[in-house]
């Protein structure tokens, strides 16, 4: 049993190590793409395109040669790290739907950004507006949850529907002014990933990973036993706010590929799968990131090969992982009980 466990642990560490290398490589690729005007980096960029061409040649695909595909794949891989990482705390705080809510808030943000750019000629990043509005929404949910006597999910439901309502109003109002495709944001689309959106996701991922590693202990304690954490004089309100703001940030980054409607899936489904098989909290974190990677990579393969939307493909693969995890864990409990 212990030998089996140490094997398992080694396997998880290898998986996490590979994921880390992949994620760093993706951040590097996005950096090269962003800085390709700089002489030395320009050469690296050319090399990367050649490598992509060879990859396409051997795989018989038409994917890796195109920088816009690099951006969406890199964004996907980074979502597969950051979303389950934050999601592990959310799921175990019974806040699974907060991601969905903040995505709808961010959608309202996109609508606001569109309206502003249509009326004033401003041409900044829509994602940045979505980020700001998403964070404001996060603070709003936190504020409502602390000041109302209702159950935890009532403010969440109000915020979810309310911000979506505002978003649709603004979009309808501004329809005449913008020839804008809302569907891209609702359902997610590879072509929605702009260079600035991909860079945003790179920055978000690095920040989220650094912050969650630095506050691992505090977030774990608060998630497990909030009252005891308060007695131990942890600043619970501050860490709650930090968690919800990080969620908003991840959601805005992930929205580009998954779309408003599906974004909660990456926060929840890999974590649910990991919870089925993991023995400890640390293992849950590791496994949820691994399941996240499997879902993203599997989803990309499926969507590119079948010419179907990426967001839906990723979520379907994630849910397949979840069902497999349930199957695997019920088998392992059966194996233990028959002994």
């Amino acid at each position: 049993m212990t030998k089996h466990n140490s094997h398992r642990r080694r396997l998880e560490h290898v998986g996490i190590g590979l994921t880390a290398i992949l994620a760093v490589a993706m951040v590097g690729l996005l950096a090269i793409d962003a800085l390709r005007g700089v002489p030395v980096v320009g050469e690296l960029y050319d090399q990367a395109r050649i490598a992509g061409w060879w990859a396409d040649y051997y795989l018989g695909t038409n994917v890796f040669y195109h920088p816009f595909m690099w951006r969406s794949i890199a964004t996907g891989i980074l979502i597969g790290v950051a979303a389950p990482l934050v999601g592990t705390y959310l799921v175990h705080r019974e806040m699974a739907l907060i991601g969905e809510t903040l995505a709808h808030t961010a959608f309202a943000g996109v609508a606001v950004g569109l309206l502003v750019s249509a009326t004033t000629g401003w041409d900044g990043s829509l994602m940045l507006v979505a980020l700001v509005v998403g964070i404001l929404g996060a603070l709003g949910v936190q504020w409502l949850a602390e000041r109302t006597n209702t159950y935890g999910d009532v403010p969440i439901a109000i915020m979810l529907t309310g911000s979506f309502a505002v978003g649709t109003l603004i979009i309808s109002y501004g329809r005449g002014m913008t020839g804008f495709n809302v569907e891209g944001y609702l359902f997610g689309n590879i072509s929605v990933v702009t260079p600035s959106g991909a860079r945003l996701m790179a920055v978000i991922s690095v920040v989220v990973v650094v912050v969650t590693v630095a506050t691992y202990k505090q977030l774990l304690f608060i998630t497990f036993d909030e009252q005891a954490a308060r007695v131990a004089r942890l600043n619970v309100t501050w860490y709650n706010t930090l968690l919800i703001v990080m969620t908003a940030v991840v959601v805005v980054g992930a929205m580009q590929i998954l779309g408003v409607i599906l974004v909660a899936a990456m926060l929840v489904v890999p974590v649910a799968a990991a919870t089925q098989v993991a023995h400890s909290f640390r293992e849950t974190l590791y496994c949820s990131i691994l399941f996240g990677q499997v879902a993203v990579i599997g989803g990309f393969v499926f969507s590119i090969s079948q010419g179907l939307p990426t967001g839906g493909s990723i979520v379907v693969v994630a849910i397949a992982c979840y069902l497999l995890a349930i199957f695997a864990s019920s088998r392992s409990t059966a194996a233990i009980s028959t002994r």
Partner: protein
Amino acid sequence: MTVVDLENVTFAYGEQPAVKDVSLRVEEGDFLGLIGPNGSGKTTLLHLMLGLRSPDSGSIELFGEPVDAFDDGERIGYVSQQATNRGGSMPVTVREAVTMGRFAHAGHSRLTDEDHATVDEALETVAIADLADRQVNQLSGGQRQRAYIARALASEADLLALDEPTVGVDAESRDAFYQLLESLNESGIAIILIEHDIGVVTDRASRIACINTELYHHGDTESFVESDALTEAYGATGQVVHHHH
């Protein structure tokens, strides 16, 4: 040294008074049993002592400091009523839960070997070292309470506050659990225990505070047993109910 010092503390939920004009002290090494009928404000009083709630009036000191300025979180170990249902489905191992006792010490820095040694020691003391790698949600009620006590020990707390810790724990484990509390108290840790079973409290606690919104008795166990505080406090609820009829 005075561990907790309450003076004329009053607290109400809106219009509904929960704690009225309570003054009491817990000294170093005390084992205080906090008893009273259901809804008598025991848990509220404990929350006030620990700084989870702020009083409407009166002053509260923890280890000689005003409670809202107190920041030595590691000096208090707390086992809440909800502790038993929390973490219901969360995959946290006993070792991980006990290690949380070191978090207030460590802050944002990494846990040291010393921290891990303290955790091992705490697991040994409450005799659940063999369960260290099990998930908290797979433990029995009694084992789970031991895990929470171990967390308090790992934080090297000087005060252990427990809110009805043995609800849903079988009689045998309960006895063992209270023996453990007694021996921890003998080693110098002050204990505040909320318990509905008055027999347990009079057997184990050295001092008793009996409340029903107001403080009916505060003193050593012998004087409590001889006094009428119990009937007065529990009777008071009866009278109120009667009055409404």
